[in-house]
């Protein structure tokens, strides 16, 4: 009964999306202005209905209703409650329902709160959003019904992949989804603005919080996903240039570029066509990513929900949505009048330069990801990895870091670096550049063997970190707006993360050892001893747990417990690593199998400063949150002030 209810509500939501599209499109004609009033309430109602439908599916998972096919395939009555809930989106159908839910809710929020954009552009935007949603509704209702029943309910569900029974993974995909879908709103705004030819600061102001929000979620999602892969897979790496990882990185790169260009459009009315183009590109990258993951046309470690037929459906949606948008762009771009001009030495120019560099990296990643597909078309199998991505991306990244340090210090429109003003900008930058050179020379002298890229990374990070804080110099820190703090922290986060990456690749120490109980090894500055081995049992797994005592540089002992887990339902194994974090790095211990002679295979890594990678990622996301909160507060203040003025006027009878 609950499943049928959910399906019926989903159909109703789809019907409302169709109404939203038609009403929104009709309202653009002069004679259809009347019907435009329908668009907002319909968008809100569509959001509410699809949310109910999604909650229905969660209920089925929580109850473990074994007459529903999806529950049987992805859940189990013995699973902890939190993973039953997470199981709702741990599969193809459920995740697609989650996708339309977030999309419709985002549309509903736009309909509720957006008051400053002109009504025609808003209606076109909501119609665009409904158009994209309809594609996904069709996908759900015709090709992947999450509420399908089984004729004969089985005794027990088939569980969830043991690798997926992890808090990190339970919440990593939804975080990325919110990011992807947030970009769909940015895309719809771009479409709306193209349709009504209203590409200007008002449009940028409406689009900006969505880009910022999506970008925050993508940043945090990628950071969390990277850390999850690092500690749970037991491979000791944090980024593998796997197609699925690239699929999340590409929208992030596009969103980062979009975030900066939309701020230029809002405050300076420049970069009109470029911003619209990036809005289209950012969401295309989300769709391309989803397509690559779901269709299985690329071989990836994330073999999740792979099915060529689904791939064909997503590809059709991709072709219709993005192809349509690009045709619209091509037709309209020449009529989008050129925005305000700026000189070569200005903050706009710096932002444009870094936008181009970000797009360069995006192109590099896209080519590298699709290259195996291209060569396979000619019958050659290749795999592309770090030896391509790292140096080629660095070609674009290094100039970008340099401009990132200078850009925020420049003035809008036109700057002259002469006289007193010149000294105020060039002197601190020269000092930071000096730091880069000194660190690079020092690293090359002390540790020449680490290679050029890690050395450059350490040097640039050391210079970029202080440079990030230069925009605060000469300001009253208590009166500095939150968005400026956000920018400073996010830029510093890039430096912190870069330092962690470079240090990890330069100074990691790896030891493979077969140990009997009581035996010891040296791993970098660590002295590790295998103390014992003990079987343990969890709710749906059993494991062998090793006890390893570790001493850093002759210090006091700490105990670590890496374990090798065996899952019962369904059968599977996982090697849970054990981590010992210090201020200057992390010791990473993985328990392997028992050799024939009774010794235990163990793997140790000492990774200096590796946590900085994720701390930096967190700082970048936190910077975004500060910017968001700052804008919300100033919006709120403006609303309150407006309300007060209106109230006074009313009292004075004016």
């Amino acid at each position, binding site marked *: 009964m609950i499943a049928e209810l959910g399906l019926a509500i989903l159909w109703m939501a789809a019907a409302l999306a169709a109404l939203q599209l038609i009403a929104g499109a009709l309202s653009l004609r002069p004679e259809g202005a009347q019907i435009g009033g329908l668009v907002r309430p319909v968008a809100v109602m569509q959001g509410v209905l699809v949310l109910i439908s999604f909650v229905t599916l969660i209920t089925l998972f929580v109850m473990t209703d074994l007459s529903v096919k999806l529950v049987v395939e992805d859940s189990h009555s013995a699973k902890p409650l939190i993973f039953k809930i997470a199981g709702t989106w741990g599969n193809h159908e459920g995740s697609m329902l989650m996708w339309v839910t977030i999309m419709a809710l985002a549309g509903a929020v736009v309909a509720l709160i957006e008051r400053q954009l002109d009504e025609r552009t808003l209606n076109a935007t909501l119609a665009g959003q409904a158009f994209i949603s309809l594609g996904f509704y069709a996908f759900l209702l015709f090709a992947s019904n999450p509420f399908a029943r089984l004729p004969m309910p089985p005794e027990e569900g088939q569980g969830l992949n043991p690798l997926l029974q992890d808090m990190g993974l339970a919440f990593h995909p939804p975080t990325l989804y919110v990011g992807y879908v947030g970009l769909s709103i940015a895309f719809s705004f771009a479409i709306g603005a193209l349709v009504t030819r209203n590409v200007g600061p008002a449009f940028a102001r409406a689009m900006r919080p969505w880009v910022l929000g999506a970008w925050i979620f993508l940043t945090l999602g990628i950071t969390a996903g990277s850390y999850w892969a690092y500690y749970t897979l037991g491979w000791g790496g944090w980024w593998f240039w796997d197609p699925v990882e690239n699929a999340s990185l590409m929208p992030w790169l596009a969103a980062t570029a979009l975030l900066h260009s939309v701020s230029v459009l809002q405050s300076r009315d420049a970069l009109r066509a470029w911003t619209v183009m990036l809005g289209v590109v950012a969401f295309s990258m989300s769709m*391309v990513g989803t*397509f690559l993951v779901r269709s299985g046309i690329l071989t990836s470690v994330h073999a999740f929900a792979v099915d060529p037929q689904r791939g*064909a459906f997503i590809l059709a949606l991709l072709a219709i949505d993005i192809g349509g948008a690009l045709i619209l762009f091509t037709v309209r771009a020449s009529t989008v009048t050129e925005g305000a001009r700026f000189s070569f030495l200005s903050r706009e120019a710096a932002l444009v330069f870094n936008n181009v560099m970000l797009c360069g990296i995006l192109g590099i990643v896209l080519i590298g990801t*699709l290259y195996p597909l291209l060569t396979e078309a000619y019958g050659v199998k290749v795999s592309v990895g770090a030896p391509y991505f790292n140096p080629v991306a660095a070609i674009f990244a290094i100039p970008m870091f340099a401009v990132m340090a200078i850009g925020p210090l420049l003035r809008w429109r036109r700057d002259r670096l002469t006289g007193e003003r010149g000294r105020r900008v060039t002197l601190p930058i020269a000092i930071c550049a000096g730091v880069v050179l000194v660190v690079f020379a020092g690293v090359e002298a002390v540790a020449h063997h680490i290679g050029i890229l890690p050395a450059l990374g350490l040097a640039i990070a050391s210079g970029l970190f202080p440079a990030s804080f230069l925009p605060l110099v000469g300001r009253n820190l208590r009166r500095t707006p939150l968005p400026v703090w956000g920018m400073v922290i996010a830029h510093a986060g890039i430096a912190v993360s870069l330092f962690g990456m470079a240090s990890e690749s330069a100074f990691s120490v790896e030891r493979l050892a077969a140990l009997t109980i009581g035996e010891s090894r040296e791993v970098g500055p660590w002295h590790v001893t295998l103390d014992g081995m003990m079987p343990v049992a969890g709710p749906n797994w059993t494991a062998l747990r090793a006890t390893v005592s570790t001493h850093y540089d002759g210090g006091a002992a700490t105990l670590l417990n890496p374990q090798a887990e065996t899952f019962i339902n369904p059968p599977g194994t996982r090697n849970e690593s054990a981590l010992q974090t210090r201020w200057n790095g992390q010791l990473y211990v993985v328990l392997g199998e028992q050799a024939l002679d009774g010794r235990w295979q163990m793997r140790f890594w000492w990774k200096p400063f590796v946590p900085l990678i994720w701390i930096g990622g967190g700082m970048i996301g936190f910077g975004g949150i500060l910017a968001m909160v700052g804008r919300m507060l100033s919006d709120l203040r403006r609303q309150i002030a407006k309300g007060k003025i209106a109230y006074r006027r009313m009292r004075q009878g004016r």
Partner: protein
Amino acid sequence: MKNLKLGIWLPLVIFFGLIGLFVHGLMRPADTNVPSTFVGNPLPQFDLPAAAADRPGLTTAAFRTGKPHLLNVFASWCLPCAAEAPQLAALAQAGAQVDGVAIHDRPDDLARFLVNNGNPYAAIGRDDKRAVQIAIGSSGVPETYVIDGQGVIRYQHIGDIRAEDVPMLLDKLKAAGAGS
């Protein structure tokens, strides 16, 4: 201005190129097997001592007889190897010459394995250091190679031989025999 107008078409062109690539990728039957780069190479030089009392050891020269061989990489401690024994016996019955390389094995264990599972091998070489296994690009047991009459690797079968693989291997043998 002319350049700008052409530039506007660029995203659309790139996009349709991508779509074309994706369609092609989807239409192509999914083939996740990576063909061994050792296929087409001659066997490396080796001279393995006998692993079992009643069979000779194995040398590279033994393959240059003008007749194709099957080379089976196996071990007594490997369960799938026991599971594929009936298929190897069937292949030997059908006229294939099967040679074995026993990996990291003890003579007693191997003798017991051959008694329990049958002995289709004409010769069994003893490879305690996995030197030959690595030199022919085998990453585990069991694996089975088709070697032509000149001692050139023609096919590599990874994993155990299932009943349905037997006709395919016989075809490969025949092709290797015809080619030489």
